[in-house]
């Protein structure tokens, strides 16, 4: 056990799973870096954010594979390899790029098992950076997980801290279904106590990161950190329970419903754009299953229905804030 960053936790999970299972491979753009460069130093990059650093050096070019800028080919190669015996971990770099390769994911990988009547498995992971906050503007800052969540056949993982990231990634790699694993840019440098040995965290099991009795905040990914801050701040005045579903598909509706049944109040927080997002889904789940226990109308906090602005001043207003969450908590308490 030692303190590790979210980035290190992911890197460690990749190392350990590749050691554990020789069929695990990595594939993507510049996850190695330096191929064909004048310094003749393959391995000098390790991913745009350094998440895959050292893996090429350890596992070699057969298992850590750089590609041309051809995302459909990457995702298809991963899906085809998964169908035929490997466990590929493909990197999409920024999740925003899914639009050039989504067919391979949602029409192919996600549907094989069903279309083939159960006679196939597609154990692959797609890692991608998500989220706003680094002044990357409209095409490099999106959330998009509601879209992946909508697709049957995909599993969707949104870790909110380094500990979960390691365990969930190990699970994703060992899992026999296609998994979208989303890494929020602003979490890479956050730190946590993370065990050195390998471990897995099962999908579809929410974590209660703060226990409380007055209000339930259901938050996703990075928003969990904000929700925790609000809970901590309000401690003593309002008792806030924070539920981190950790995976959006499967979604742990049981824990969400139980928590709201207990507190009677709900604030749902999703960094994604508001229409058909996870906050809507959570509110709908609660309305369907725990309507009678609601003491007040729920509150929903999301980014607005706009692209992500370049201006850091506007971006700050775009991303849900602790201020908004706190205000919402106070409102449901006042209602």
């Amino acid at each position, binding site marked *: 056990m030692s303190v590790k960053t979210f980035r290190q936790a992911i890197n460690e999970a990749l190392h350990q799973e590749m050691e554990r299972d020789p*069929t695990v*491979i990595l*594939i993507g753009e510049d996850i190695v870096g330096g191929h064909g460069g004048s310094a003749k130093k393959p391995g000098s990059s390790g991913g745009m954010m350094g998440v895959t650093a050292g893996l090429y050096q350890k596992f070699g070019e*057969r*298992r850590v*594979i750089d*590609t*041309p800028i*051809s995302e*459909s*080919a*990457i*995702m*298809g*190669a*991963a*899906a*085809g*390899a*998964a*169908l*035929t*015996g*490997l466990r*590929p971990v493909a990197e999409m770099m920024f999740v925003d790029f899914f639009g050039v390769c989504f*067919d*391979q994911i949602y*029409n*192919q990988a996600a549907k*094989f*098992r*069903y*279309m*083939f*009547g*159960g*006679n*196939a*498995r597609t154990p692959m992971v797609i890692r991608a950076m998500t989220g706003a906050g680094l002044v990357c503007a409209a095409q490099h800052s999106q959330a998009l997980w509601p879209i992946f969540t909508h697709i*049957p*056949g995909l*599993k969707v993982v949104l870790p909110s801290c380094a500990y979960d990231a390691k365990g969930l990634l190990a699970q994703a790699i060992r*899992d*026999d*279904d296609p998994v979208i694993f989303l890494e929020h840019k602003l979490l890479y440098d956050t730190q946590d106590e993370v065990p050195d040995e390998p471990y897995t965290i099962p999908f*579809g099991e929410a974590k209660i990161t703060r226990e409380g009795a007055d209000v339930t905040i259901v938050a996703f990914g990075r928003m969990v950190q904000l929700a925790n801050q609000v809970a901590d701040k309000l401690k003593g005045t309002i008792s806030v329970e924070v539920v981190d579903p950790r995976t959006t598909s*499967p979604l742990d509706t049981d824990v969400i419903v139980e928590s709201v049944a207990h507190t009677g109040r709900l604030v749902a927080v999703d960094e994604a754009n508001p229409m058909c997002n996870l906050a809507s889904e959570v509110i709908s789940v609660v309305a369907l299953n725990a309507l009678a226990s609601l003491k007040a109308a729920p509150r929903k906090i999301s980014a607005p229905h706009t692209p992500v602005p370049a201006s850091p001043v506007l971006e700050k207003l775009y991303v849900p804030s602790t201020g908004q969450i706190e205000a919402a908590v106070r409102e449901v308490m006042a209602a």
Partner: protein
Amino acid sequence: MELSKSELLRAYRLMKTIREFESRISREFEAGTVPGFTHLYLGQEAVATGICMHLTDEDYISSTHRGHGHCIAKGCDVRKMALELWCKRDGLCRGKGGSMHIADISKGMLGANAIVGAGAPLALGAALTAKTLGKPNVSVTFGGDGATNQGTVFESMNFAVVLKLPVIFAVENNGYGEHTGIAYHLGAKDIASRAAAFGMPAVMVDGTDFFAVYDAMGEATARARSGAGPSTIECVAPRWRGHFEGDAQAYRDLTEIKELRERKDCLKLFRERVREDKKLEAHEMDRVDLDVLALIDEAVEAAKVAPHPTPEDLLTDVYVSY
């Protein structure tokens, strides 16, 4: 490449099975017994056969919306194929895939595909598995002339060259993508030369000539198995039927098809050739014909009366676990 007598008989049987399977489906479709819509492989039988004769169950193919011929050539059970086309519970995909998603992983058949061009990236993956595990297997992606204009196919070509993957791009140029002729949709001189410019060997062969396809595939396969990388084979073979069954083909000169059927029937050409070369005799092939017809009749009649999936089947097989 010399083929033994039994190999020649196998080739003939495969082509004939495709021909009769598809002809029967065509008639059944007209009679309204087949659910959904379907694209037939008639006219192109020598392509799938010439390609797949080089493959084992450990070699992979990715297929297209026009996939029945690929299935048969790759060794799928015709009975289970018929069951699948009728969307029956004991079909290859338990009735959930149908004509456009028919697959048999155990035979190395990675699925028909209703998305044009989608098979090419998948074939990269199968090739990557072989390469990573150090196996001598190859992977073939079938695709039409129209599909070669899809970005996924282009990406796959460069990708395969860069990573030296054991992939063969088997392009089936049947002259049309849906209702549009290749003279309109292709800007290049031809498909093979465009593929060659990606940095791999690419040849154009007469796709109605089994032996031409077989020989070209022999070279491509040897190259791929040796680790030298991908190749493209453009096989020119007419589509006898409309894009799908029910297509009136107003865009097409129907005498053209009639003539093609006379001059470019791969089965006729094969029979002529093996008799000229004194490799097979007519009665040997006639016996195959009878076998094949009996098999298909049995398969189709059984499929028609076989049980449907049960309601519970709707919800299974989405995930391995969830």
